[in-house]
């Protein structure tokens, strides 16, 4: 274990936000889910007792008849905002006094930094470059991520869980978001920060970065493994494999999406367009883990080779 290097990477000023992220994301995930489970228990009780459902306050927060449901913004909200502003300012001050912003040598186009890393919040995209060509990783997929996020409200036909934390009523949505946000996006940021070393080579945390390391791994294209040599054959074969992947993934998504009676009820509320949109974005999202497995475990570079583009 190279503890010194691990410490150096961790305390690199621009990496401190990622360390912060690694701490706050699990905390807020727990914080949100804790409230979700509390609400779920309340929902269970209300469903078991219809009479109580008619009379109960329907929140986990305390409330008694006679209490106002609304409070004045001044002072109850404004004092909180003021307090939060003071705390944030304090944290920022302490952070800025104790840790200096990085400043390297003057820009020099003839001296390449190795590894040359994007800012940490774009490391997910840079890591995707390992698995996809730049037109996919740098342009198409980021666009799809943004568009996919934007259409979430229009694909989600589940009317429950609007304005309160819940897990039970939105299992599929929450798992899908956790998978996309935490497993794919955030973990790729962490991989890009802590694991990718010189030459963008995979170094385990604590493994010394060797600037002279070369990896002689012959990456293969999937059609080559099947002995397909003609360009037409490769194009057709790749299209078939990607098509098969899409169909299998879509079936898997469908299976999960219609897992139980409640899920099927939500499914029945969807229009055809909503359902196809959901399938398109989820299947595209699953391309990434699929290519990660293919590349990292089986050294497969491209699945679909054509004269114009490769996937």
């Amino acid at each position, binding site marked *: 274990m190279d503890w010194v290097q691990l410490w150096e990477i961790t305390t690199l000023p621009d990496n401190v936000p990622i360390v912060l992220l690694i701490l706050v994301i699990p905390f807020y995930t727990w914080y949100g889910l804790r409230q979700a489970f509390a609400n779920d228990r309340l929902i269970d009780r209300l469903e078991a007792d219809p009479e109580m459902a008619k009379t109960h306050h329907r*929140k986990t927060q305390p409330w008694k008849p006679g209490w106002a449901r609304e409070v004045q*913004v001044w002072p109850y909200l404004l004092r909180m905002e003021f307090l939060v502003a003071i705390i944030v300012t304090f944290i920022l001050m302490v952070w800025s006094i104790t*840790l200096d912003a990085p400043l390297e040598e003057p820009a020099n186009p003839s001296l390449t930094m190795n590894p040359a890393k994007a800012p940490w919040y774009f490391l997910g995209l840079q890591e995707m470059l390992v698995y996809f060509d730049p037109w996919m990783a740098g342009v198409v997929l980021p666009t799809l991520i943004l568009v996919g996020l934007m259409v979430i409200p229009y694909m989600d036909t589940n009317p429950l869980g609007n304005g309160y934390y819940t897990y039970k009523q939105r299992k599929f949505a929450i798992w899908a978001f956790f998978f996309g946000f935490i497993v794919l996006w955030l973990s790729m940021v962490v991989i890009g920060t802590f694991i990718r070393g010189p030459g963008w080579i995979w170094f385990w945390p604590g493994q010394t970065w060797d600037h002279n390391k070369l990896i002689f791994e012959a990456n293969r294209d999937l059609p080559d493994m099947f002995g397909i040599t003609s360009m037409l054959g490769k194009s057709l074969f790749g299209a078939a494999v990607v098509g098969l992947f899409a169909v299998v993934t879509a079936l898997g998504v469908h299976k999960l999406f219609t897992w139980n009676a409640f899920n099927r009820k939500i499914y029945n509320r969807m229009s055809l367009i909503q359902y196809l949109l959901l399938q398109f974005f989820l299947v595209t999202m699953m391309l990434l883990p699929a290519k990660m497995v293919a590349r990292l475990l089986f050294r497969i570079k491209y699945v679909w080779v054509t004269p114009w583009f490769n996937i």
Partner: protein
Amino acid sequence: MADDLKEQKPAGRGTALIDGVLKEVKGLKDKALDDVQSLKKPQKTQLFKSIFRVTHDEKPRNRALGILSNVFLHLHPAKINRDAVAYNYTWGMGGITFYLFIVLTFTGVLLMFYYHPTKVQAFRDILYLEHDVPFGKLLRNMHRWAAHLMIITVWLHMFRVFLTGSYKKPREFNWMVGVILMLLTMLLSFTGYLLPDDQLGFWAVTVGTNMARATPLLGHEGPLGPELGMTAFNDVRFALLGGSIVDSNALLRAYIWHCIAIPLIAGIFMAVHFWRVRKDGGISGPAPVMLESEIKEPRRF
């Protein structure tokens, strides 16, 4: 003293003058006393009334007016869901993000006084800031860490809004605006990365903009780009950098995007975002839980 004067009965022109002056002095004294008295009740002064328009008595009506008649506070409603005031529902992340934007604007404007977006001076300006400008280093550090923190708080805000299902009806559109604001936040941070003109920023931006070469149709290395006549000197990357390499034009463009264009665009989107929060019924919760048996059948066309 006035009694003394009265005893000296034989009055001449001189005493009449003194009487007059003393009368004037007494009048002034009364006025001065009035002014002192009014200082004890500043809320009654014309100055105070003209600025604040309403008194700040501890009455519900005046508390509401204090919010509604104040340009900085009127984004708030007068009253709010009692459970939304606690930290646990919103985590305060949207508000913190906005506060960090204000901090960044403030420190950013101060930094602009010391910075020239030219290849000759940019890096030296940073050195000057770090070593000679009073509190320059603190200023730069605060700007940098607030920017990083803002990205984290934006992500957490999105995370919270997802977990509470707040993007659902009627807030669908505001979620879209929010996604755009998140993109703008990351672009703001990214364009600022190049400005110190050091190796870190230079290579990060080189790596970042190299991806633009591969834009389908619009990049000279992207699918179908060359077929449409794209070269390194007319494609989308050239437009971003103002050249085919990251050089002085790229620095100027990053500076203008960073300091003027994106903050303006983000400001417009923020106005829409906040306005829609109010128009869509204020903060989404904590709302009473809904049960599966209460789902209404969707309307069919």
